[in-house]
């Protein structure tokens, strides 16, 4: 199969997906659970891929994703609340200190940049650490960010521990798909570039990578900042989706959810992360909801089903995955048009260069 045909099929598939979403939106009431799942799935796919860039492709085990999402979400909220709404939102802080509002798209990009700046500063000390120590340090910094954003003294800027709300948001599921899709495409392009090859070299063997002329500190910093930039953007999208934000939302539990998505999808597989994020959201928000409410069938009360049981089931699933399916859904492979084509025509897959057709 030619490269060109492959590209055309990929584009056609993406167009078809968007068309289906467009039609669904016209036919199904917008309150449907389906749209909740799709929007949240797209947002989580982006943040999972950004985490995969660090954990799967650069070999930096970082757990700071929720912190950078928080920075992105707050930046978006703070910059976009309309001026006439500010006295309302910042009621304890005399309307806050910022008295302007930006266009949502501009605010999303700035959200990413601010998260990137935070990452750069945190990365200066933290990226000297390796493996588990890096994970602990990034997790700690994420918690510090959360605490600082709730600090009363910063109230005029962040509204303290109160909600940020009344900011504009896009309701269409198409917006979330396009925004997340563009960002994921950028990450894929980065991974397929010469920088991506350097990241993978660092992941495979730091000592050898350095001996090949790769500046470790510089490249680790790039990976960390880029990953956080996209985490910031996904935080802004999450803020948009939820219509109100509060720092206490972005607990470390959120990072673990994302890590779970990455592990289920396969560490080092972009498409794996995308697929598993939708799976995860569908299961946790929709299909497994029934586990949390009591159920009576013909006078018989089904045992164990009560609030919180869903988490128990999830924990068991995680344990099963970690014990028996360590590779996740995709391992380090990618789902692509070419692979399916080769599978159908039964041709051996000789070209092992990762290509992606999301």
């Amino acid at each position, binding site marked *: 199969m030619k490269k060109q045909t492959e590209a055309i099929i990929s584009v056609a598939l993406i167009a078809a997906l968007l068309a289906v979403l467009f039609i669904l939106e016209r036919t199904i009431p917008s309150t449907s659970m389906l749209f909740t799942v799709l929007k949240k799935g797209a947002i989580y796919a982006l943040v999972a891929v950004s985490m995969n860039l660090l954990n799967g492709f650069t070999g930096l085990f970082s757990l700071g994703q929720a912190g950078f999402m928080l920075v992105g979400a707050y930046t978006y909220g703070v910059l976009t609340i309309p001026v006439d709404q500010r006295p309302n939102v910042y009621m304890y802080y005399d309307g806050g200190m910022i008295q302007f509002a930006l266009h949502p798209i501009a605010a999303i990009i700035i959200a990413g940049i601010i998260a990137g700046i935070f990452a750069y500063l945190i990365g200066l000390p933290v990226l000297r650490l390796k493996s588990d120590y890096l994970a602990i340090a990034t997790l700690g910094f994420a918690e510090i960010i959360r605490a600082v954003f709730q600090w009363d003294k910063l109230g005029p800027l962040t509204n303290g521990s109160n909600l940020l709300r009344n900011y504009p948001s896009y309701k269409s599921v198409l917006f979330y798909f396009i925004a997340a899709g563009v960002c994921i495409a950028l990450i894929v392009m980065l991974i397929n570039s010469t920088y991506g090859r*350097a990241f993978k070299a660092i992941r495979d063997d730091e*000592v050898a990578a350095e001996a*090949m002329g790769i500046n470790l500190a510089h490249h680790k910093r*790039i990976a960390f900042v880029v990953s956080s930039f996209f985490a910031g953007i996904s935080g802004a999208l999450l803020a948009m989706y939820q219509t109100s934000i509060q720092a206490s939302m972005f607990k470390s539990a959120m990072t673990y959810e994302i890590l779970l998505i990455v592990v289920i999808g396969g560490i080092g597989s972009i498409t794996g992360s995308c697929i598993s994020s939708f799976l995860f959201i569908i299961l946790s928000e929709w299909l497994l909801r029934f586990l949390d409410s009591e159920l009576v069938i013909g006078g018989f009360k089904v045992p164990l089903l009560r609030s919180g049981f869903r988490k128990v089931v999830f924990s068991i699933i995680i344990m099963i995955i970690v014990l028996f399916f360590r590779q996740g859904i995709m391992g380090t492979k990618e789902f692509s048009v070419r692979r399916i084509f080769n599978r159908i025509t039964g041709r051996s897959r000789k*070209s092992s260069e990762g290509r992606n057709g999301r």
Partner: protein
Amino acid sequence: MSENVLKVEHVTMQFGGVVAVDNLNLEVNKGEIVSLIGPNGAGKTTAFNVITGVYPPTNGAVYFQGRKIVENHPQGKMRRQYLGENEGKYDHVIAPTPDRITKLGIARTFQNIRLFKSQTVFENILIAEHMRRTSNLFTATLHLNGTEERNMREEADRLLHILELDDVRNEMATSLPYGKQRRLEIARALATKPSLLLLDEPAAGMNPQETDELTAFIGRIRDDFHLTIFMIEHHMDLVMEISDRIYVLDFGKLISQGTPDVVQSDPRVISAYLGVQEDE
């Protein structure tokens, strides 16, 4: 004197109370193949690590093509430990990271093969091109550096062809037989376009036939790539056959140096190796 490509001057390396390399002086001239031999634990790999910037030495300096690339003076805690001579001679700290040394033109291989395991042979070679990139993060991400990318790939393919590795181009690096993995590691080092190549036990674990092939291979790349080669090796057949000069290290000290014939008949070398199996 720009004759010598590499010059190691009074290099001492201490780890706590252990003196791994003790006042080492050596020179490698352009176009030579020079070997560093010695019993296990003599400090050979430590010397390599000092030259390539992995450790800053406790004292001493390293020159590459007449330019000082590594220098250290014993300071602080090290000053109390350091008991050697030439104490006041070095008063700067020049401690580049290994990637800077590679960019200067010193490439190395490792004692235990360190290939990029999850990548193909071609990708292993291609990584060396990264340090010569002119694109930045944005142009590379947006794939605006098409010409450069094509040149990188062509260059890697050219090298694979010269080193007769193009038949395994798309194999995973770790799926190669041992001898080929060694050869790939040398190829990867050559991809950085060095003028000095450091080989750390290139024949370790090879059978006699593979060793013979390697001997020919090392001689060939020296001529084809106009290289100077400095290597650590235990296979005495290989060392005696291709070395122009040999340095012998024992307990961190240089005990003998000269042509293979001189070294072979040196009583100090014989006593250092006595009771130690020569063929590993």
